[in-house]
């Protein structure tokens, strides 16, 4: 294990493309926690979240050639792979049946309870400083993967308003992170 070595990002990507195991091991050590974090915030169930994280690393390994450094950092790309995989899992038939929940459940998400061990770190922790209304929009779009259109219909507010409010919330997020 070479957990203590650090790679410049470009070199890491090159090694990953060569399917270098050491680089992959480093990738796991370094990023699995952060990726697991976002996966768990989407898929609350611990075991399911572990399955998703495994799928995420397999996808990264398979699709590393499609990563384009011009479009952003490696971590950003991986974070999107992880979020999409988690949302796909939650949207999957089996999962929906297990929850008996098929439509956008606004009542629950309008008062999002903080789940200990899940919501008290990472992006969600930062989000907790936003106004309830803003947090709800980010929760529905980022963590639950609903389109602006679906959110507008469910909350019964105009599409334009959803877009503006979401944009405002997101730009505040950047200020909070810096």
């Amino acid at each position, binding site marked *: 294990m070479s957990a203590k070595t650090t790679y410049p990002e470009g070199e890491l990507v090159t090694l990953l493309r060569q399917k270098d195991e050491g680089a992959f091991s480093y990738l796991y050590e370094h990023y699995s*926690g952060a990726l697991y974090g976002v996966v768990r915030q989407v898929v609350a169930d611990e075991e399911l979240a*572990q399955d998703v994280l*495994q799928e995420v690393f397999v996808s990264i390994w398979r699709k590393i050639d499609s990563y384009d450094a011009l479009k952003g950092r490696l*971590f950003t790309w991986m974070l999107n792979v992880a979020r999409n995989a988690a949302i796909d899992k939650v949207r999957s038939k089996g999962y929906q049946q297990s929850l008996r929940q098929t439509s956008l459940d606004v009542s629950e998400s309008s008062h999002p309870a903080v789940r200990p061990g899940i919501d008290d770190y990472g992006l969600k922790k930062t989000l907790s400083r936003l106004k309830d209304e803003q947090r709800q929009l980010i929760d529905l779009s980022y963590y639950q993967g609903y389109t602006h259109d679906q959110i507008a219909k469910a909350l019964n507010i105009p599409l334009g308003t959803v877009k503006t409010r979401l944009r405002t*919330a*997101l730009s505040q997020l*950047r200020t909070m992170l810096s």
Partner: protein
Amino acid sequence: MNVKEYISSGIIESYVLGLASDEERREFESYSAQYPEIAEARDRFEQQLEEQLLADAPAPPVALKARVKAALQAERIVPVDGDGFAHEAPVRRMNPWKWAAAASVLVAAGSLFWAAQLRQQNQDLQASVRNGQETQQQLTEARARLADLQDQANTLRNPAVKMASLNGTPKAPKSQVMVFWDSTSRDVYMMVKNLPRPASTEQYQLWALLNGKPVDLGVFDFRQEQLLIKMKGVQAAQAFAITLEPHGGSVNPTLEKMYVYGDL
């Protein structure tokens, strides 16, 4: 275009977090190629996001790494992407006229037989591919389980790992938990032998004790498939204890609800 306004419009965050529409994405990519300020602002936000998420991340269960590793190893042996079948061999053309008349009768008869054979071969091939995939799946799972156990065995065998046996308090005398503390990495693992089932509103919480002061090592779920559960690490400890706390854990241990205790 007003670049400053564009940068502060929330588009950067939408793009980076994957919330932008296809149209917004294309537009953003072309603008960031044209205006270096936009690309820089994007990069700054990405770095901030990365720093925060890396600094403040939960640790996935320690055994998951072995599972992922086994899945990747399987991936390398059996490429799942692509069509997975050999490409069709090119058909060789013969001079048609000379042979056509004589051959046509033979071809007609032969092709019926050939078609039947091909169909059979195709079915056989499909069946064996299915079998192969199942076997591969079983192999991957078995490998992952073995790698898990090996990892855990290595932890237990490591001479730097010290063990504390936590025995039940009068409250639950049959309870027993082993805690393993790695004196080099400062990692803490735990093996639950016996603990009473808690109410769903409560969770067990592990504490390290140093000079009479408790240090929180995290809560854990009652049902764990893993033999060794990785808890939060601790720099030093003289003893360990487990208390029952409200779901999510407490800042200070509830001493009346201490279930096991043991010196290191």
